[in-house]
């Protein structure tokens, strides 16, 4: 076969083509979709030399069996689905060379819920409304608008990025090695927290919630102490966001995820911060979640910390790289600090520069002094 391709031998439980999401079409009622765990998808891409928004395969609980019809470079990030290459265990969070004819297999989830397979060059599927993401309910995007099935052959794009000479790994402190079954998730209040009794807000942050079996790409239904509304659960339908926590009249919170409808009619008590959305995406039925209230400013810092990490992995491939970014990191952001060499670590301001096609991008990182 001349073209670069992979063949699905067994699709696993639910394998779909996803990228960073379909933005710009919510006004037409089109859900954003994209990776449930965006952070892992983007890291997977960077590890194989793809731009962060390249299309990957999102694998769920039991991953697929895939045959490679050409020598490829791949990476797997996110949950540990016990992936094996020709029978030998392989590690997440690193780039791996694959020979022609090799078979990738999954032995089922050890940890987490979803993993991302990035292939150097990215998966070649048509762009529908600006994105390669699959939205199954309306049968569009991704590979033929559906989940992958046995016998599908997917084309892989050529890549002009230089071949990777050696295996790339994420620095030690940055690898998400274990999601576990108990998650602390940070939440900002609102936008409709005033629709709830003050008792309900206290209960929400003081209690332990459990992920129900009703959890999919649209939303995660939780069980636990029920939350009382001041008068009614209904609002005049308005926009939703990835991580919006809506509470219908039965008092059980639902976290809205990648395939959520753009609008909804239930009061939203809070919003999961961007940096912690991956924890929800990786949680399984029966896992416990404790919500911790943070300010929007703290949520922003956490986001910048994640972005800084991805940016420093490979500034050239970082999509939407700004000309100048100022971020403030807390001193205990050990994960990021490990990327910055010791010499500059103790200075108040570190400037990372990247030369992208002759244009200089500045990255200023200030580290909180206390």
């Amino acid at each position, binding site marked *: 076969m001349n073209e670069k391709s992979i063949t699905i031998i067994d699709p696993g439980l639910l394998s779909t083509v996803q990228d960073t999401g379909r933005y710009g079409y919510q*006004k*037409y009622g089109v859900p954003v979709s994209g990776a449930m765990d965006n952070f892992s998808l983007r890291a997977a891409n960077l590890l194989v030399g793809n731009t962060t928004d390249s299309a990957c395969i999102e694998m769920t609980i039991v991953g697929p069996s895939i045959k490679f019809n050409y020598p490829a470079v791949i990476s797997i990030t996110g949950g540990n689905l016990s992936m094996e290459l020709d029978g030998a265990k392989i590690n997440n969070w690193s780039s791996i060379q694959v020979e022609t004819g090799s078979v990738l297999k999954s032995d089922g989830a050890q940890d987490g819920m979803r993993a991302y397979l990035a292939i150097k060059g990215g998966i070649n599927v048509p762009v529908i409304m600006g994105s390669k993401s699959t939205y199954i309910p309306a049968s569009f995007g991704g590979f033929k608008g559906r989940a992958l099935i046995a016998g599908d052959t997917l084309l892989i794009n050529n890549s002009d990025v230089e071949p990777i000479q050696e295996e790339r790994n994420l620095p030690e402190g940055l690898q998400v090695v274990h999601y576990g079954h108990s998650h602390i998730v940070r939440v900002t209040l609102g936008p409709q927290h005033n629709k709830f009794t003050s008792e309900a807000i206290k209960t929400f942050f003081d209690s332990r919630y459990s992920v129900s079996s009703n959890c999919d790409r649209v939303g995660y239904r939780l069980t636990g102490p029920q939350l009382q509304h001041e008068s009614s659960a209904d609002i005049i339908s308005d*926009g939703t966001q990835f*991580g919006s926590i809506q509470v219908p009249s039965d008092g059980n919170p639902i976290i809205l995820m990648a395939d959520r*409808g753009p609008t909804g009619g239930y009061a939203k008590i809070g919003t999961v911060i961007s940096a912690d959305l991956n924890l929800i995406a990786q949680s399984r039925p029966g896992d416990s979640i404790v919500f911790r209230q943070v300010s929007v400013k703290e949520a922003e810092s*956490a986001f910048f910390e994640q972005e800084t990490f991805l940016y420093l992995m490979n500034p050239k491939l970082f999509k939407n790289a700004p000309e100048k970014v100022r971020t403030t990191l807390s001193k205990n952001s050990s994960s990021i600090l490990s990327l910055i060499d010791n010499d500059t670590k103790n200075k108040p301001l570190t400037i990372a520069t990247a030369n992208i096609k002759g244009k200089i991008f500045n990255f200023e990182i200030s580290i909180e002094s206390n």
Partner: protein
Amino acid sequence: MVPTITSVGDQALLVEFEDSISIKTNNSVKNLMAQIEENQEEWVVDLVPSYRSLIVMFNPMLSERTYIKNYLLKLIEKSKNVDQSLYKLIKIPTLYGSDFGMDLEFVAKHNNLTSEEVISLHSALNYRIYMIGFAPGFPYLGGLNQKLITPRLDSPRLKIPGGSVGIAESQTGIYPNDSPGGWQLIGRTPLNLFDPHSEQPSLLITGDYIKFEPLESIEAYFDIRNDVESNNYKPEIHMLDIEPKSHE
């Protein structure tokens, strides 16, 4: 009410104009959205308009929350003085009754009307599109004639064909694609409301108006349907400089 701007997590702001449904409020949403789209700022990730509010999703790497808040406040102020643009009225040819609107007789009986009266009341008015949501291309329409109010089905149907026109309580709407649903079906339009391969994938958008046009026969339905399927159909669209009359 003065518009308020609040945070929805760390990457979105919610602009709320009122806590009630009115065409005036929905026009404010529509106007602000139009202005933001016109400016094409690189930090805008997406916009989600609804009855009375607009979510502005932004990329925090490319701008900053306080700046965006002030930017939006200025635009809101400016959009107050902007002349109302033209109003778009889209005709929706609809075959009422028979197998295409199997609940027409139920709706008639429930309201002590004849089927003909239901059709004439339902198609007499223009309907305002307040927002598109729930499913791709699904329009939330302004008020139904009070004489047509009918409860939902006791148990939702598993598959409703795309194009179905239905009534649920005091709302009327059109299912753009095949989907499950509990609305009383009174007719079907041969038009495609949603096409993921089109540049503007949804025929209808927030702030437009529609008017149902009863079709005379099943032949008329299939004539249009054939044209739609072979891409030869152009929807009848009128641009009006005064706001079409409708129920709020």
